[in-house]
């Protein structure tokens, strides 16, 4: 009887096949390759679910399948004999993620039928091929069993997002945004790769799990108080962990490498859904979760993760408040939400972080697809100020979008509430003990308010009030390929929170924190990759106010209250048939927010006004000095030749004289030297 695990590679290979088919034959296929993609992602989903069920049945899978490059251990001492392999690690975390990714990918494919095909786009085979490659890369990244494989597919994910963001390459802005996305994440990946190299060179292994893993090796090194590359083991773990984190910050769009994400809205909205919910951006946070055991060894690294996460959450949320483009708002919300996840992981809330990752995948995909539907409705208009009143004309879109918005804002009982609350709770109890985490928590908490504000600002401006343009008054209809994914995700956004009702569990004592059990190895388990193991390694103290339940209620109340406050503020400010912008109230702050704290400006300045002039200077130096020396040598030689040939005056008497002079010179030198005249 074949088991699900034997087919594990197929989970990723189906979309790869779809990529090849769509690229080669998409032109000739009905729907231009969409069907291949849908079939492939559906198959991936089926196999993912099968694997998920198998893991639920208590089995896990960790196998090296392919030796990519093999060192020769016989001739090389130490880590140079390392083998670089491809393998599959199917544990609770990765199977969960596989399901999420393949599900979202499937829905995006289906939605694309309505969004891309129906709109008569050109280049559809390319589009579907790239989607397939994107899905393939992400799935392979998810089930990678070692850091190098993870890095490789991490990079491929970056490539695919480049290609898809730049899908409309005939415009000026899309290629620019694509370039920016790749370049900024590449900058992060530079650190990631350095981290991979450093970890490999230090521990001689890159495995995530098992006794041969670098996590165990690092733990041993710390226990043994070894010195690695001139640093104490823990310091070195921190350094390497932070290097890898560079890649995470780039991909998950954390401050300061978040600037690419809003620009990435230049891609088709479906692509945005995929990038934000399940692939590109999720990859970063997933990686932290994947190698959480390693970060658990370094409190410093975790603190930095938490702090960056908290700061990004607030930072991005404030910018989201002033955006007019519906996709821009969603983009900043993504940055902000991933900040939460980082915070959750940083404070040791492994379950909370993964939980939010899952929920976010559903509701953010929903929101983006919803936004896509809105854009279809609006005949490709994205400015919210030109919308309004769509609520009645597109009820499915509206209600599903609303579900997503409620989840995003974290309103009970939508899924977002449960996961965000858990993150905030974890941060809160830690923040009570440690002021660094306290600050991170405070920022994240404040961000909750802004989240509610921008979310409902978006909902109200888009769907409520009166139509503010002709397009809004007469929307384009949407088909079932649009509404089906929306409905699916809408349901998920509502109910996904059930997976881990931690507050209720804590209050009532019921064993209903399924996700925690799942991640803690109640079902299938790979040694060391459990929540409990991580928590033990970190050993964070948990503060409380009065009692655990009270603390829980305080935290939840603060979060929910602020979210509702934000939503209400939005309602107050923007409801009504003719909402006003309220920008003047913000004064100069508006400019700062509107310009995204000038983050783009300084990064562009770095590229354009610093790097480029330096490069031009180097070029001038190269042409002038280095090449100048080369050409100078040749000029001097020829000039010398010009001098030498002047000896040849053409007058034979001169020759006789010169011959005699030369002869005399020889005579004098050698005669004197040899003593002939004595």
């Amino acid at each position: 009887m074949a088991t699900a695990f034997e087919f594990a590679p197929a989970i990723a290979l189906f979309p790869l096949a779809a990529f090849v088919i769509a690229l080669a034959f998409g032109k000739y296929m009905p729907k231009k390759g969409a069907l291949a993609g849908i079939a492939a992602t559906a198959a991936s989903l089926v196999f993912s679910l099968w694997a998920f069920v198998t893991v639920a049945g208590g089995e896990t899978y960790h196998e090296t399948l392919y030796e990519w490059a093999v060192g020769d251990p016989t001739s090389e001492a130490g880590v140079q004999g390392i083998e670089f392999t491809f393998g599959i690690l199917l544990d609770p975390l990765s199977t969960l993620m596989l399901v999420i990714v393949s599900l979202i990918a499937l829905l995006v494919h289906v939605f694309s039928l309505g969004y891309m095909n129906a709109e008569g786009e050109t280049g559809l085979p390319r589009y579907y091929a790239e989607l397939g490659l994107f899905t393939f890369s992400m799935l392979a990244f998810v089930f990678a069993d070692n850091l190098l494989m993870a890095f490789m597919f991490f990079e491929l994910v970056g490539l695919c997002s480049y290609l898809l963001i730049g899908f409309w390459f005939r415009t000026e802005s899309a290629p620019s945004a694509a370039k920016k996305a790749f370049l900024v994440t590449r900058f992060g990946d530079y650190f990631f790769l350095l981290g991979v190299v450093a970890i490999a060179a230090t521990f001689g292994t890159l495995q995530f799990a098992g006794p041969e893993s670098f996590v165990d090796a690092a733990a041993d090194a710390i226990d043994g108080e070894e010195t690695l590359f001139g640093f104490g083991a823990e310091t070195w773990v921190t350094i390497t962990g932070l290097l890898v984190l560079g890649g995470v910050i780039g991909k998950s769009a954390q401050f300061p490498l978040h600037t690419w994400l809003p620009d990435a809205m230049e891609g088709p909205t479906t692509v945005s859904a995929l990038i934000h919910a399940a692939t590109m951006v999720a990859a970063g946070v997933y990686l932290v979760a994947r190698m959480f055991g390693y970060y658990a060894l370094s409190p410093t690294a975790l603190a930095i993760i938490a702090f960056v996460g908290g700061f990004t959450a607030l930072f991005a949320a404030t910018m989201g408040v002033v955006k007019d483009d519906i996709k821009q708002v969603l983009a900043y919300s993504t940055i902000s939400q991933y900040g939460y996840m980082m915070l959750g992981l940083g404070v040791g809330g492994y379950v909370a972080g993964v939980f939010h990752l899952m929920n976010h995948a559903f509701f953010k995909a929903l929101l983006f697809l919803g936004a896509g539907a809105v854009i279809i409705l609006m005949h490709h208009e994205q400015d919210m100020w030109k919308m309004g009143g769509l609520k009645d004309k597109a009820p499915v879109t509206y209600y599903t979008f609303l579900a997503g918005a409620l989840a995003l804002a974290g309103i009970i009982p939508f899924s977002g509430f449960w996961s965000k609350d858990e993150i905030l709770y974890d941060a809160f109890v830690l923040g009570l003990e440690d002021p660094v985490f306290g600050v991170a928590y405070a920022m994240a908490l404040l961000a909750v308010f802004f989240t509610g504000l921008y979310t409902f600002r978006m909902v109200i401006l888009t769907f409520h009030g009166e139509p503010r343009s002709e397009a809004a008054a007469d929307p384009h209809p949407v088909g079932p390929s649009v509404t089906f994914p929306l409905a699916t995700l809408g349901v998920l956004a509502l109910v996904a929170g059930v997976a881990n009702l931690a507050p209720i569990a804590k209050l009532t004592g019921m064993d209903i924190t399924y996700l925690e059990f799942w991640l803690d190895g109640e079902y299938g388990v790979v040694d060391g990759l459990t929540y409990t193991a991580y928590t033990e390694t970190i050993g964070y103290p948990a503060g409380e106010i009065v009692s655990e339940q009270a603390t829980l209620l305080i935290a939840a109340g603060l979060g929910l209250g602020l979210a509702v406050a934000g939503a209400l503020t939005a309602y107050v400010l923007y409801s009504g048939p003719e909402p006003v912008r309220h920008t003047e109230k913000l004064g100069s702050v508006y400019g700062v927010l509107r310009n995204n704290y000038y983050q783009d400006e300084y990064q562009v300045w770095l590229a354009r006004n610093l790097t480029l002039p330096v490069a031009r200077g180097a070029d001038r130096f190269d042409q002038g000095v280095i090449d100048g020396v080369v050409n100078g040598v040749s000029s001097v030689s020829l000039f010398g030749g010009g001098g030498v040939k002047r000896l040849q005056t053409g007058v034979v008497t001169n020759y006789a004289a010169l011959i005699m002079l030369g002869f005399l010179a020889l005579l004098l030198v050698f005669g004197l030297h040899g003593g002939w005249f004595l």
Partner: protein
Amino acid sequence: MTVPVEYYVLLSLALFCIGLFGVLTRRNALMFLMSVELMLNAATINLIAFAFYHGNLTGQVFALFAMALAAAEVAVGLGIILVLYRNFRDVDVTVPSTMRW
């Protein structure tokens, strides 16, 4: 009475230098040629004197050869000077200087 060999050498050296001086100063091709002949003759004096000094005849034989060759050289030289005159209407050796540098 025997003249010491050093005197012959000095004589030949003087002759050689005179010839050389002529080579360097005379612009007439014929004078140039004659100066070279003087230098050759300086060598001939040497050869004969040394032959006498060493008491073998090789030097004297070589002197004969040298004279014969000098004659041949003059023959070729005069021929060249002839065509020189035909082409340049002059026997000044500094005139033909079309080729230089």
